[in-house]
């Protein structure tokens, strides 16, 4: 973990409007300043100054972009596979389906593990959200959402609630109950409100806040109790399909991937887009942090998965093969970060060696697209959900 201890001012009086707000650290004529998000917007939208035209602005943005590439290239002294040469190769893997969870009546779209390492929540196209004890394959709770295509579901860190959303444009939190006969929909709490479908949601370190991403191109942080919008994140120019919170000890950033082929890293406090990577050739379906929080992987419709290093600020690996031509819908790392599990639209799951860039295993079994792949919290197994209405636990 990076040992940078700096006192970045993230809240306080804005240099422009003097109001106490979360601050973005930006540069005005090479001088660092702290503006609130409103002032940054105003700055961006201010009319053309004397001597400025669209062409001068375009030229300026081009020069800056080239400068950024130069800065990145200066520190690009070694490739990942060179570093990987010193690491010993992996042996053969035997991964089998250990459990098959049947019960959904339609495509399974999303899955999330509980912190107790054996329960999962899954959501499907027909609006059903089911909580399973995956170890015994028992269904423990079931909720019927008032909408179809429930693309996002998440288990609360306490294990006492689940959040889900989809075509209803909302994210709702359902507190779970010990009484099996209780109607969970009665205690439902509507938290997030977007203007288009909800593609992904995640609790932060507690049950009290939810981070959501939507087809309307934005991500947002919400307070669960009051439903208040705490922070919104603008920067994607198309649907945002996936997000993931950083596991690092400071826990203040998250990464999102969208249909504009960009993967953006955001500061949760100020709403600022701090890093952006645009090397994919098609929609990014899934983003996931490396366990140390210093890198993240993406899975895309261009049939590749890529690894981006946050400290070196560039793409460091591409996981692809000639024979893999279908998009990757979901990715996740194993506990040590050595393996990358990726579910594809050709009904298979490919397991990649993160360091060496080679594929170590291909898993068959699903009869339709693999829509979601998640490793359990203690790394003992991973769960895959598919459009064939089933979930499989592999170990």
């Amino acid at each position: 973990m990076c040992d940078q201890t700096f006192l970045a001012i993230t809240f306080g009086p804005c240099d422009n409007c003097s109001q106490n707000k979360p601050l973005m650290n930006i540069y005005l004529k090479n001088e660092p300043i702290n503006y609130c998000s409103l002032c940054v917007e105003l700055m961006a939208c201010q009319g053309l100054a004397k001597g400025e035209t669209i062409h001068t602005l375009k030229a300026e943005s081009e020069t800056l972009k080239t400068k950024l590439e130069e800065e990145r290239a200066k520190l690009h002294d070694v490739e990942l596979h060179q570093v990987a040469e010193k690491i010993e190769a992996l042996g053969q893997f035997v991964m089998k389906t250990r459990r098959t969870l049947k019960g959904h009546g339609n495509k399974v779209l999303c899955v999330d593990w509980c912190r107790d390492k054996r329960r999962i929540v899954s959501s499907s196209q027909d609006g059903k959200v089911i909580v399973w004890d995956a170890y015994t394959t028992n269904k423990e709770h079931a909720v019927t959402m008032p909408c179809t295509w429930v693309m996002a579901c998440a288990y609360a860190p306490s294990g006492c609630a689940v959040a889900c959303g989809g075509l209803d444009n909302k994210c709702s939190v359902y507190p779970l109950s010990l009484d099996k006969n209780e109607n969970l929909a009665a205690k439902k709490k509507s938290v997030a409100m977007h203007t288009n479908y909800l593609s992904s949601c995640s609790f932060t370190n507690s049950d009290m806040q939810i981070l959501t991403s939507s087809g309307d191109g934005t991500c947002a942080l919400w307070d669960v109790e009051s439903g208040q919008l705490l922070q919104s994140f603008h920067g994607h120019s198309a649907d945002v399909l996936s997000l993931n919170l950083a596991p690092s000890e400071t826990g203040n950033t998250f990464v999102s991937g969208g249909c504009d082929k960009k993967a953006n890293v955001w500061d949760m406090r100020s709403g600022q887009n701090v890093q952006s990577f645009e090397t994919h050739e098609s929609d990014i379906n899934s983003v996931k942090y490396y366990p140390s929080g210093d890198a993240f992987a993406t899975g895309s419709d261009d049939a590749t998965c890529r690894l981006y290093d946050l400290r070196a600020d560039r793409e460091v690996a591409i996981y692809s093969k000639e024979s893999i031509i279908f998009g990757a819908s979901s990715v996740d790392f194993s506990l040590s970060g050595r393996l990358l599990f990726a579910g594809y639209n050709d009904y298979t799951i490919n397991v990649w060696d993160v360091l060496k860039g080679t594929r170590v295993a291909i898993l068959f079994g699903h009869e339709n697209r693999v829509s979601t792949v998640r490793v359990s919290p203690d790394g003992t197994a991973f769960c895959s959900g598919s459009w064939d209405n089933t979930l499989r636990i592999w170990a």
Partner: protein
Amino acid sequence: MTIRSDRDHGQRYRPRMSCLKKLEATVVQMQDPSTGVKGTDQKLNVTIIPHVITGQDIVAWITKNMNIDSDEAQAFGTMLVAFGYIYPLQDHKKLVLRPDGSLYRFQTPYFWPVQKWKAEDTDYAIYLAKRNIRKKGVLDAYEQEEYNKLHKWMNHKWDFIVMQAKEQYHAGKARQKADRVVFDCQERAYWIVHRPPPQTHSAMDYGLDRHIDPNAEEKKTYDYYRRIIIYTQQAVMRSRVKSSVSLGALAKYITTFKNHDPFLVPCLPSNPWQTDDDSYWELNTPDVEIPTKMRVERWSFSFYELLNDPRGRADFKIFLKKEFSGENLAFWEAAEELKWGTAASMSEKAEHIFKTFLAPGAPRWINIDGRTMGLTVKGLEHPHRYVLDAAQTHIFMLMKKDTFYRYLKSPVYKEMQKKAISPAPHNFSEAQLQQNMRNRRPSIDPIITWQKEQEEKAKAEAASGPKVRDRCMLKMLYLTSYVHMTAEQLVPIICIATSK
């Protein structure tokens, strides 16, 4: 149920079906007369169908030409069949590739899915009507249902549909029998792909359409460029690190955690998912008395690992208690609670933290530098979620760089390392595994675990002594009962007395 739309299978919105072009290229190669898959003529009733290929030949060709295993080749072949580039002659409703003598044919490019010709409901209605004309009762149950539905929907153009169907039927009759049979097969295969029978799915189903068309050019107005400039400027000024350093760190992380990754090194005593024995989870519960050696080793990897594991944090607290420096961790935990807590409770929490940790003379005063203290106290005038960020980072770094290393060298940790257990690996026989499978144990509901944890926390808080506010309350109660004053009269006196 398909929703009528003008979309050509989502190809307008980003080539989400870009795989189709690659599949096409492969199919063309497979049909090459010299290097492609070898076909034969097959007799079907009285006609001879040309260019019939077997499943095993397809798999063999793919294995050889794409340089992959036969399993993967079979999966790839299934994709070709699912999309309709190759169709089965026997069992035509199941679109999978069987690696045996099952018979298949290449679909004619006219019916390839990549063509701009949309699989419209009108065309489907004409197809079903045509088959109905040819022979009554030949439609399957699901087809009959679809036909009735379409008849109802498209009632207004039903004459047109019937006319088209009749035209196509007569045109078909004019062809040679062999050609007609082949064409019928091809057309039927096309519709199986685009209108799947019940209990099957269509590979052309790509899910939901995107809300924003990413192929549409973004309007490049001046604010578009300004935003790029603002972002790129701060991106250029960000500090970055040499690749060798950061990639080295990634590799180091993997090496450090290698033995703890159940996919790389089997976990002890055994992986519950593999043997149906949940001892591994029993031995690693958050509040277990004696942790395992692996777990204790993991605490030494980084301060974050220690804090993240509730058992590790508890052990660290014991160490801090011995050193009488528990306030740092308590402050960090309180700050975390503030950061991730509900918006409504924030100002109350912030005040409580100030009184307990930051105020001069506070009972658990933390030692931070003047600048940070100044910033924090000033921020607390208008408390918000991140007001303690600076102080929290300072304390965290202090603990990480100093206290953590002392902990690792301390007798508390060394004791724990000695006490920690190392379970022997299970060695179940086949019969035992079967039995385990039958006796999978359910676990306590996480809600109950959570409730217990909260109770424990409340007890611990009460036991650690009353805080300032509570001391105030106790004094008030004492005085109201002995001095016969009301609470309101007492408040100013008490506050002056305790604020010294």
